[in-house]
């Protein structure tokens, strides 16, 4: 049977992808950003997932203002890296696990989460940067990916509670898939940052650290945090962090934190990263 063994929380700052694509990871500015992922790359090599279930958001790339699905599940055979306005990232095509994705759609929708099904979708830095920081620069990604795209661009995004409960439904779906698969779930985005208007550049390290702590100590309480707290305390774009609750909801109630990395800044953003393992 398929099983979720671990969860990864990770920022998806576009500048991190640019630094990797243009060979600037050893610069003084980026060195501390990437140093914190060295252990993560070792860890994921050991864990060796068959599938990454990757929760991310599109940044007005695949979805224009015409269509804004709250939860969109990637069911295609493959997902091309998108041109976001400066050419597509030079990274491998992302290959899906279509049978697993279809199974999750069937299970989760009957579990009363009304997903949008995507049979064709380009993916932007929100999805490819987490793969890059975790897997480096291989010729092909070493595992299949099932993308879940969450609207966090137009307010309101789904509530933290809704995301957490969806994570639980995804867990039930994966647990009931008959193929023997090791699945790792990624929640991406954040941490505190504001990209717009006069308050741009806001960072709240204390708030971020508390968020990281409570993923282990108080995940249910954390999922109840109201949206206005994210906006006010972690910046207007910090609300991306609701996506981490999907990841957390899909794990056991009790988890072990095996790695953490926090660094300010990468471009406009606080970089946060955590690896949580199920005890079972």
């Amino acid at each position, binding site marked *: 049977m398929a099983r979720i063994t671990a969860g990864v929380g990770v920022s998806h700052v576009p500048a991190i992808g640019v630094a990797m694509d243009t060979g600037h990871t050893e610069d003084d500015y980026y060195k501390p950003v990437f140093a914190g992922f060295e252990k993560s790359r070792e860890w994921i090599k050991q864990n060796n997932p068959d599938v990454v279930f990757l929760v991310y958001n599109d940044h007005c790339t695949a979805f224009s203002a*015409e269509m804004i699905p709250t939860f969109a599940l990637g069911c295609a055979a493959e997902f091309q890296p998108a041109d976001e306005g400066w050419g597509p990232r030079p990274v491998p095509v992302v290959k899906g696990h279509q049978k697993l994705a279809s199974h999750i759609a069937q299970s989760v929708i009957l579990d009363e989460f009304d997903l949008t099904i995507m049979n064709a979708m380009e993916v932007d830095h929100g999805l490819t940067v987490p793969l890059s920081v975790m897997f480096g620069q291989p010729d092909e990604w070493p595992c299949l990916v099932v993308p879940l795209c969450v609207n966090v661009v137009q307010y309101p995004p789904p509530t933290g509670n809704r995301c957490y409960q969806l994570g639980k439904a995804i867990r039930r779906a994966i647990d009931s898939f008959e193929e023997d698969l090791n699945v790792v779930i990624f929640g991406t985005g954040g941490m505190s940052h504001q990209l717009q208007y006069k308050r741009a550049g806001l960072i709240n390290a204390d708030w971020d650290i508390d968020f990281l702590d409570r993923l282990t100590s108080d995940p249910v309480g954390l999922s109840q945090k109201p949206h206005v707290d994210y906006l006010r305390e972690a910046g207007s774009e910090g609300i991306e962090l609701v996506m981490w609750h999907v990841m957390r909801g899909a794990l056991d109630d009790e988890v072990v934190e095996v790695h953490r990395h926090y660094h300010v800044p990468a471009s406009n953003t606080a970089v946060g990263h955590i690896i949580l393992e199920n005890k079972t």
Partner: protein
Amino acid sequence: MSTEEKSAKNATKEYEDIPGTYVFDADRSRQGYHLNMFCISLRLAENRAAFRADEPGYLDQYPMTAEQRQSVLDRDWNEMLRLGGNIYYTSKLAANDGVNFQELAAKMTGMTSEDYRAMMVAGGRSVEGNRYASEWEGKE
């Protein structure tokens, strides 16, 4: 909280008193629709080329307001946001101009790129004094 109380609470925009911030909600999305659709068109290289060749002519395809159109031609980034633009859309226009996200952020805050970058390296803009519009009174 009753269902009715919850609905009433959801309808209030509790985030309107955050200073220096436009929360891109459904009202702003409606207001900025054509502006944002113009911006996202610049995602594709052929559209970027057409826009560069004739900015006013290219903008004619998008029925935005005169104010929105002028803010694009002026590259008035904050005005675009005020008129319903969203940063992920306006950043496509910035990318077309060769302005990266950090430079764009600096422009919106009125800082030089060097000062903004230095602020970020020093830990970013503190949340202290920046939570409520009342804290900014007399400072702007």
